[in-house]
């Protein structure tokens, strides 16, 4: 939660950075603008660091006698789930025939869900151990850095990935740059499968995201350096000037005119053309409303507001605009813009018909997003809302998949989708429940009953507690 100060009870001052990892880095100005050099209109390679992820071998598997949440709000009691060749084959009731050659897992008393998808993580860019040498999440040398790509900072040996898998059932996650900058750079969507390289973890075919931030962090980080922005109005001025430039750049591209290669403008043009999804850190309701107007002004769409602590105040607006709210259950009070948090936020947003997502922004809470959703669910029910467990699971898999542009591939247990599946040893909205097995693309990547199916990163090899249950 608190970058750069976690692990210290001395925290306090740097708490200003809490919420989306805006830890300051020493400002080493390497020139504000990205290198620009090119002569002709050329087709730039849009995927120069392509995914080399491959699904590991799995066996045709049937889980039977299990309670299934399908991820889109459906539920099957005493159900049967079949998956093979990395894909969901079918889910159905107790009479579902199990074809020959399938391994059969008894799910009696257990629950089966799509894998959890965390839309807001800094694993890899702020990895453990959180030493200065690993602080790679904020290029805090310019308020707009659309040219940086989070994947170039991700350390695949971050032990946090394995914790998110084993304790949290997280099968996919978006790694974002921090929120020091108004425009922080491109995100990367990963499958939570260990690899030697980041490319080996990249979710095949996932669109890029672009991190934006409003509010306290950018104005504080740059204001304290005597630079613009130092106010919220400065935030918007810099954003709008940047969008205006991007619009002009895109116009040239669209007209086939020559442009100098500009990595920053390529990202922004990608947003304006709808190829890159905006993931916008924004707490306050009034500020979200202004961002929405800005998106209309320049013709882009906000995919999700992250940390939307005040989403409940404008839930109707979010529903109308089709913007997701990615929120915590109950974080509050760590900074001014998080002061008006209410535990019913998740449920109020859901009830207003807006796309609701439970996110972590935290290497610890990513290990129990199911528990965070459960708290939000309970708060809603105490208000008298009728929300079922299976509806609430949409906050953890289908909705984040939608906001990441991968809902056609994962996020629910529809036939043909990736077999990203978690078997829980009880109701996943109970505190007493943990993942028992996690499959990613049909391959068994974690098994609580088999120590050999517990990944150990290079960093933890040969250290105290190697291979421990953690």
């Amino acid at each position, binding site marked *: 939660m608190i970058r750069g100060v976690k692990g210290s009870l001395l925290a306090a*001052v740097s708490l200003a950075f809490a919420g989306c990892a805006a830890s300051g880095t020493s400002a080493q100005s390497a020139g504000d603008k990205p290198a620009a050099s090119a002569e002709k209109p050329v087709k730039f390679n849009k995927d120069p660091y392509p995914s080399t992820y491959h699904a590991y071998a799995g066996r045709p598997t049937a889980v039977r006698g299990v309670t299934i949440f399908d991820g889109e709000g459906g539920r099957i009691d005493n159900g049967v789930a079949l998956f093979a060749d990395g894909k969901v084959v079918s889910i159905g009731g107790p009479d579902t025939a199990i074809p020959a050659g399938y391994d059969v897992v008894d799910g009696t008393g257990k629950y089966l869900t799509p894998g959890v998808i965390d839309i807001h993580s800094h694993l890899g860019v702020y990895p*453990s151990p959180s030493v200065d040498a690993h602080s790679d999440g904020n290029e805090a040398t310019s308020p707009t850095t659309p040219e940086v790509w989070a994947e170039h900072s991700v350390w695949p040996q971050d*032990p946090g990935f394995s914790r998110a898998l084993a304790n949290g059932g997280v099968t996919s996650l978006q790694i974002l740059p921090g929120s020091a900058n108004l425009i922080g750079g491109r995100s990367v969507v990963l499958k939570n499968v260990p690899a030697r390289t980041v490319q080996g973890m990249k979710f095949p075919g996932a669109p890029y995201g672009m991190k934006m931030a409003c509010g306290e962090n950018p104005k504080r980080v740059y204001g304290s350096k005597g630079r613009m922005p130092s106010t919220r109005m400065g935030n918007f001025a810099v954003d709008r000037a940047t969008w205006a430039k991007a619009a002009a750049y895109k116009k040239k591209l669209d007209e086939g005119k020559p442009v100098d290669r500009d990595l920053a403008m390529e990202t922004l043009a990608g947003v304006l053309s709808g190829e890159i999804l905006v993931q916008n850190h924004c707490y306050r309701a009034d500020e979200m409303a202004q961002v929405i107007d800005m998106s209309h002004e320049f013709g882009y769409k906000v995919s999700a507001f992250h940390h939307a602590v005040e989403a409940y105040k404008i839930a109707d607006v979010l529903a109308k605009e089709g913007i997701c709210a990615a929120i915590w259950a109950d974080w509050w009070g760590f900074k*001014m813009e998080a002061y008006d*948090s209410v535990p019913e936020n998740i449920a109020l947003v859901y009830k207003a018909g807006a796309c609701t997502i439970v996110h972590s922004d935290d290497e*610890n809470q990513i290990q129990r997003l199911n*528990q965070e959703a459960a708290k939000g669910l309970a708060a809603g029910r105490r*208000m008298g809302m009728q929300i079922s467990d299976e509806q609430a699971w949409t906050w953890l898999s289908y909705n984040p998949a939608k906001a990441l542009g991968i809902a056609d591939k994962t996020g629910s247990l529809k036939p043909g989708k990736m077999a990203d599946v978690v078997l829980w040893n009880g109701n996943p909205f109970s505190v007493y429940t*943990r993942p028992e097995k996690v499959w990613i693309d049909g391959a068994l990547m974690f098994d609580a009953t088999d120590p050999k199916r517990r990944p150990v990163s290079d960093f933890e090899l040969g250290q105290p507690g190697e291979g*421990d249950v953690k």
Partner: protein
Amino acid sequence: MMRALLLSAAALIAAPVAAQDVAITNARLVIGDGSAPIEGGTVVVRGGKVVAAGAGVAVPAGIERVDAGGHWVTPGIVAAFSRVGLVEVDAVQGSNDRSARRSRFSAGIDIAPALNPMGSPVAVNRAAGVTRAIVAPGDSSGLFAGQGAVVDLGDDNDMVTRPRALQFIEFGEGGSSNAGGSRAATFLMFREQLLAARSYARNPATLAEWGSDALIQRADADALVRVINGTTPLFVRVDRAADILNVLKLKGEFPALKLVLVGATEGWLVARDIAAAKVPVLVSPLSDLPASFERLGATQSNAGRLEAAGVDVSVGVFDDDDAHKMGYTTQYAGNLVALTKLPGASGLNWDQAFAAITSAPARAVGMDGTIGSLRAGRVGDVVIWDNDPLELGSRPTAVWIDGKRQSLVTRQDRLRDRYATPQEGALPKAYDR
């Protein structure tokens, strides 16, 4: 007129006592001392104190009766290590009294005057069932952070249950940065400051003789004397196994020290040494990442392994948000119960887990005769829950502190109600209350 005035003055004085009698019946009663829940239990509070709790307890005549309807009734949660009352908004400096990095003083700092019982975090944590908290200062300019307090989260103006209830210090990485850059310097600084305090205790004039060479101020020396003679428990933040062993050795030179380990992330690696030293441990139990090189062995099984080795373990919420989210205490304890079902993991059973967030922290701070359970003689801090208190989303439906029924309405509830329908009505939202 005069008579009326006198009466109301008397009423003001008497009110806190008069309101402190209640009997809660038909409870699934948890005493908090590690014993199993009692079905159909009763707890009787008189004069703000528990007089009896258990099955077949008679309800005195004339006392207010509350039927718990078979729901869980427990002692209030004791936040084992927190900053509740010291912080309103972390990043708003004027509202944050956690640390005093530019103070001339260190050990002598006493947080009591900084506590704000009317702050919204007090109400929010109270509504989550937290009735008492061990509050420690965050940091000073010196090696010792200062003196913490045990507080109540009652809806009144007096928060302090016991002032100067603990002294706080960090060893390990945090301590070495305070001491000048190495662990070696931390241990030397610690020893020199305690020896200076000891000299001062024998002859107060020594401090004046040292003049500007003195390592500590008079107020610091006074506080450290109480640490040396065991009057004030010394809460020590320490995580690395090797550091823990070195901290335990401090009792060799200062045998009266009452040590309490805070954090002890790698405690499980030296659990038998901790148990042998009879030093209690406060853990933030879900820390399972190698967040730094002094926490390489971090695991959620730490609490369970320590308990199994005979260490007195308390469960708290720190290394996270230690002022606002004390409500996580029950969730964290529940997670330790979950571990008992996980192959290869160590956790706590339900009764142990609940004791770890009530009587165990009370014992660690030397107050288990006063707070942390529903045994007779303890303060009347009682909570009725709508469900298993360790389960997610369970909430108190009634809370008493010192036998006094508490308001559970928070600022967050008011915001929720205002925006239950987000659209404005006939008038702006500002008129809606």
